[in-house]
């Protein structure tokens, strides 16, 4: 039987390569970059025929002529002068990445209690290649995503976190990704997070653009979570409408590990979040949650790929969206159960509410299953608030507007309640409430002076 190969992707948009230096980096990073560039040449920028990009035209965004930031810039300010997190009660270790490069507090990796190492990826490559080499790009290089490959071809820095065996982080690490420029720039940070065996950690990732210019971020983050370890990832996106934020989260899990990720997208002109999870050891568990609230012409697209590569693994995905005005949303959630991944349990839910006729939602939950002893379900809905419930609340004297708010809040609550960091959960609850009431026009609360 001659098998007809699927059509090769069209030639990569070589024009984009002109924005980057011709020469690959040196050493370990250079090796990774060179291989990634080959992959990028093969995959190219994903077109609309690419199933994972069916509802988001990234070629159009990339064509807009952003200048790539390819080296760290010299700064004469301290980070506190330009940015302050607005949750003062948040007790975290804070690290900053500016325009894709680690904003150095010290010129070497910091050691946190328990032997935890944190700092810049470049620092880590330089100081601890022994820790970096076995992991960097291992899982990301399995992806055929052209945009991830573009990042991997040129990204030179970002955040690095290493939690050794048996270490339990006493408080979460907070990574603040900032973009600040007076030009229209494209930044490509790349991060690496490693948890050894029996380790525990928490990570809060905040993305902010401290500029009103149009900017584009194309980020890659890899998470390797070893045997019996657990990691909580919370991400808060609160960005303005000229921001295009593309991110690729690659989560690779070992035996009996557990990862929970919660992505809250409050604002952003164009948001595209990829989450690829590989459950690579028996008994691994992954819980992925997401909530996005969009209005005006915002475009928010979440694409999940959950790869059950080992037996006895469990995954759940709960993604919810509220779309107002001319907002457009997309969700894709693919669950792959590989041959032999018996006793898999995978449950996926995607629920969306359209508030205006001009809003649009496309959703595409997918099951691809090659093992029989599995329990997999997915469900997706697009609709409005339940009219029966609305009537019930109103019949108890609650005004329609408040009743709607209550129901929408209840809708969002299913995701928010999973956030484990209390002050963060309270803050997000408040932000969501204000966002739903239209009182949070855009990201402005968490920085003091973006013009500086």
């Amino acid at each position: 039987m001659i098998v007809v190969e699927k059509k090769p992707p069209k030639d990569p948009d070589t024009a984009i390569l002109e924005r980057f230096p011709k020469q690959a980096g040196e050493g370990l990073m250079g090796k990774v970059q060179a291989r990634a560039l080959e992959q990028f040449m093969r995959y190219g920028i994903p077109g609309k025929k690419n199933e994972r990009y069916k509802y988001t035209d990234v070629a159009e965004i990339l064509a807009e002529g952003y200048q790539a930031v390819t080296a760290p810039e010299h700064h004469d300010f301290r980070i506190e002068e330009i940015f302050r997190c607005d949750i003062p009660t948040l007790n975290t270790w804070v690290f900053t990445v500016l325009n894709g490069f680690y904003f150095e507090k010290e010129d070497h990796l910091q050691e946190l209690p328990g032997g935890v190492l944190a700092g810049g990826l470049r620092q880590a490559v330089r100081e601890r290649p022994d820790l970096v080499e076995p992991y960097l790009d291992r899982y990301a290089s399995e992806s055929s995503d052209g945009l991830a490959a573009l990042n991997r071809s040129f990204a030179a820095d970002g955040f690095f976190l290493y939690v050794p065996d048996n270490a339990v982080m006493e408080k979460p690490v907070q990574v603040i990704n900032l973009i600040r420029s007076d030009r229209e720039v494209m930044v490509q940070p790349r991060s690496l997070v490693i948890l050894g065996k029996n380790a525990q950690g928490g990570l809060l990732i905040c993305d902010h653009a401290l500029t009103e210019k149009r900017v584009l971020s194309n980020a890659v983050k890899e998470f390797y979570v070893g045997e019996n370890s657990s990691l909580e990832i919370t991400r808060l996106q609160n960005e303005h409408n000229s921001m295009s934020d593309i991110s690729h989260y690659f989560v690779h899990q070992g035996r009996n590990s557990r990862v929970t990720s919660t992505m809250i997208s409050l604002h952003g002109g164009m948001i595209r979040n990829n989450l690829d999870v590989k459950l690579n050891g028996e008994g691994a568990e992954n819980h992925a949650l997401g909530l996005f609230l969009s209005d005006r012409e915002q475009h928010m697209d979440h694409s999940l790929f959950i790869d059950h590569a080992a037996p006895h693994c469990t995954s759940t995905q709960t993604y919810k969206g509220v779309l107002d005005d001319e907002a457009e949303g997309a969700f894709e959630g693919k669950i792959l159960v590989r041959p032999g991944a018996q006793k898999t349990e995978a449950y996926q839910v995607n629920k969306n509410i359209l508030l205006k006729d001009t809003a649009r939602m496309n959703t595409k939950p997918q099951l691809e299953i090659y093992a029989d002893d599995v329990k997999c379900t997915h469900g997706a809905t697009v609709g409005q608030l339940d009219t029966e419930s609305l009537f019930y609340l109103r019949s108890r004297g609650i005004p329609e507007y408040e009743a709607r708010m209550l129901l929408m809040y209840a809708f969002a609550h299913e995701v928010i309640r999973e956030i484990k960091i209390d002050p963060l959960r309270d803050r997000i609850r408040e932000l969501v409430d204000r966002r739903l009431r239209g009182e949070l026009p855009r990201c402005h609360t968490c920085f003091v002076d973006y013009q500086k």
Partner: protein
Amino acid sequence: MEKDQDKILREVTDSEYKYGFVSDIEMDMLPKGLNEDVIREISKRKEEPEYMLEFRLKAFRKWQEMEMPHWAHLQIPEIDFQDIIYYASPKKKEGPKSLDEVDPELLKTFEKLGIPLEEQERLAGVAVDAIVDSVSVKTTFQDTLAELGIIFCSISEAIHNHPDLVKKYLGSVVPYNDNYYAALNAAVFSDGSFCYIPKGVRSPMELSSYFRINAANTGQFERTLIIAEEDSYVSYLEGCTAPMRDENQLHAAVVEIIALENAEVKYSTVQNWYPGDKDGKGGIFNFVTKRGICKGDHSKISWTQVETGSAITWKYPSTILKGDHSTAEFYSVAVTNNFQQADTGTKMIHLGKHTKSTIVSKGISAGQSNNSYRGLVKVQKGALNARNFSQCDSLLIGDQCGAHTFPYLEVGNKTAVVEHEATTSKIGEDQIFYLNQRGISTEDAIGMIVNGYAREVLNQLPMEFAVEAQKLLQISLEGSVG
């Protein structure tokens, strides 16, 4: 009904594909290959008017520019379109068709298939259009139906006798350039059924097409057109079988349905093309485009399909809900065993206001087969109060097969309520054991559980078909447990 079911449960001992025989019928064939001359020749042999030849050539030229679609979850071997015979017809005498003039071997064939063409032995209340390879050999009950104004004939006859209807509607739902296989069909289709239900008429009997591929190396390209005028109703059935052959044979059909105001069309298929042998050798490639349009307000189109045959199935019976308050349904059971592959589902395109669609899909995979549901529910901006509910379940029998679900929900109106649910699970060992304990063999137990699982869909079929379908489900799964 119960008696029939009883019979079925006893009859399931023959595990071979029982329709795999070849009939020795004298055939009139064109040589292998496809070019404009072949198309002209098909049109000439069918004595078609000029407009049909133009339609065919337009489609052929378009087809040459197109590429085979590869988006489905299918591994399709290369198809040499020049290695196929595009026209094969059982030889017949001149003059109008009467039963005496049909080749007796052909009558025997249909008897063997359980489709008697002699009206005195008719299937209770079913009119049949029997199509072998490229042409319709016999349509029963035409006179009875004609009294009510119902036209039920081969599409070739319709092209000659009802040109206005054909010109108006042929290609109106599935345009000649719709997709690769539809374009190919438009270029070379040789026959098919035509059905017209006039205003206010409810068809008193089920109308049915029975398709049979007999000749080797041929493709079958039939085209069916159903037009239901205002306030009319028809239930239409389609069945198909083919001999067992080692090579693959291509079946690329097009079905178009037009339902006008308040009309209802129920279209049922029991697809039992030869699936290939246990090692995946041979079998039919079933690449079919079926689409209906609920053109008028309050119209309804209901698709029911039981897919057990074919080596590869690529098929998405769809409905465009254009009329306000129109309704569409899609009920499907698809069984794949051994090396069969199926990528099947539906599209529901909501355009009108207050439209409603329901999708119920039950996939059953066994052996080393792959079975995918692929469906699109699209609610356009102006489609106020659209409703869709989809339930897509997959059942796995054995750990070598695959079951996949690929729904697409595209919603552009806030008043829509679109819900999709899917589950995938293994056949219940405790259920099998329970039946075993009551003395039922594992094979029969699987048959019963699968039939129970598919009940919601089977219930949609007209009774004669439901019985046939139950039997088929069980036979298709034979040998799926070790």
